[in-house]
């Protein structure tokens, strides 16, 4: 269920619920990057994916990648965003319907018996997460700053 021939070397996986306030930061970043990707010659090595939350099957999306960047809203990141590497870890997110990037890497490692690709986490600071709320203005500002960071290019350079 994975076609290696079509797999692009860089995966950006931005996740969250677009209708839960600042949880929309991930999907909003997806939209911004997608718009850039539509422009000819930009981000051709990048595959963009989005979902409400991470789950075990997303480990299969990491196959044949050189670099993976997860993008998510965070209630604890220092504003406007944090960017850091992710290593496989068996945290308690294994035990819920939603998993952490570290847990996804751990599943990848276990089922494919090989090290996961170089992976980073871009955590954009959010503030409110209620159903039906729009993105808060502070989160919107953080999103823009984070987007400029992504477009500067270092994030997308394969290791």
């Amino acid at each position: 269920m994975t076609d290696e021939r079509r797999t692009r070397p860089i995966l950006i996986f931005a996740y969250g619920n677009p209708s839960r306030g600042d949880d929309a930061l991930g999907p909003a970043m997806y939209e911004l990057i997608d718009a850039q990707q539509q422009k000819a010659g930009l981000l051709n090595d990048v595959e963009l994916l989005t979902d409400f939350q991470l789950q075990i099957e997303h480990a299969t999306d990491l196959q044949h990648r050189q670099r993976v960047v997860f993008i998510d809203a965070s209630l604890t990141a220092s504003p406007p965003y944090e960017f850091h590497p992710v290593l496989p870890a068996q945290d308690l997110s294994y035990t819920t319907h939603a998993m952490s990037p570290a847990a996804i890497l751990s599943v990848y490692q276990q089922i494919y018996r090989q090290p996961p690709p170089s992976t980073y986490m871009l955590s954009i600071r959010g503030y409110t997460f209620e159903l039906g709320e729009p993105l808060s203005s502070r989160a919107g500002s953080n999103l823009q700053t984070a987007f400029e960071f992504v477009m500067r290019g270092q994030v997308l350079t394969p290791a």
Partner: protein
Amino acid sequence: MTDQLETAPHPERLQRVVIEPLTRVEGHGKVTLLLDDDNHIKQARLHIVEFRGFEKFIQGRPYWELPVLVQRLCGICPVSHHLVAAKATDMLIGASQLTPAAEKIRRLMHYGQTLQSHALHFFHLCSPDLLFGFDDVVRHRNIVGVIEDHPEIAKQGVLLRKYGQEVIRVTAGKRIHGTGAIPGGVNKSISTDERNYLRKDIDQIIAWSQGSVELIKRIFSEQFDYHMAFASIDSNMISMTGSDGAFEIYHGDLRARDPNGQTIFDHADYTAYDQYLREGVKSWSYMKFPFIHSLGSENGWYRVGPLARVNNCDYFTTPLAEQERIAFRDAGQGRPVQATLAYHWARLIELLHCAEAIKALLFDDDLLSDDLLVKGDMQARGIGVLEAPRGTLFHDYEINEDGLVEKANLIVSTTNNNQAMNESIRQVANHYLDGKQLTEPLLNQIEVAIRAYDPCLSCATHALGKMPLEVQLVNSEGELVDQLQKRANGNIEPSATCENSG
């Protein structure tokens, strides 16, 4: 089946044990156990705070947006909301009979999501309980433990889940936020290439599904009496069935049976659900407490989901699942199987059925047809009901002349099981908690009972790692007697210092 949750004498004198949140159960749930002066459980309350604002979220929206919009209510089962909203909006536009292509494409989507949801629950969330036992250490009793000890089972779980997601992608057009189902039908057919792509792996998917049923039967048989007794409660059961009593999860009538399997109602038109069901409220919970109207609130609570569906149906239309249903039925020895852990067994029979049903549809040329939409006369009220992975799901909309939703009522699957989950918690706690000492095994037992229902307590926000498991024992005076915490790293902290230990 008396409502002992609410009828304990002198509830103001009961002590409380609070557990929050539940691991391997989505969202921020909290359990309060109320103890009497003799330290026996008299009340159990599962608090779920996330089911707020669903109706408000929908009100004022144009009806044609609803199938897409409602997916955002829940990141766990967005496809269920997508399809049930489509069914309700079918009714709004007077589309009483879909084209064969539209109905079959929707069914395919529904089977795909049920397959992936059940695969996740068994292989990821509950198999550690069943494979390792409830008393196994937490850090081992999770998916990593499964992978280490049963690498093929874990990998099958991931790939089953992935296959279900691919079925959704093909039928809904996208991995998420799909627009496949629209009022009156669907907006795209399946291409030959897409069908062939899904056909490629379906025999393997069926084989793995069969293997999962064999596994659960083996697990059950090894400690049959224990598994049948754990958290077992006698309850009414409600599910959808086909007009001839066949197992049905997309479109049919409602059937209710009592704990002995006697019919309460049958062939009930789901658009008249409010004649059969009522929704009670309690001051301590945001969740409603639905009950069968003819039985009243005290005796009319019920269970939904795989256990109810497999017990209630007369037969499966697919041969392998039907064979397994008969084995399941026989375990009940003439009564419906009431064991809460039998949810897992029933869930895997459904998983197998979905795999078989997907294969059958993939060889049905109606999927390729471009005859996708019908329409009729507009109506002011639209009601959609289907069997979501976790149980019966109701969406009921009323619109104004501009097509905007004025009123909405949703009964989600987990809400239907609300009272039943409390009853199972109480049953377990009465067996394993006696005194004022909170232990990790006790927490595990309660969580195992709740997890059997696969409750969806979340709505797709994901502040992960913030909320460790916390258990508190509070007496009737509000004093902390004992406390136990499960940290995000899995460590269990010893009881906190309690000034009032006795």
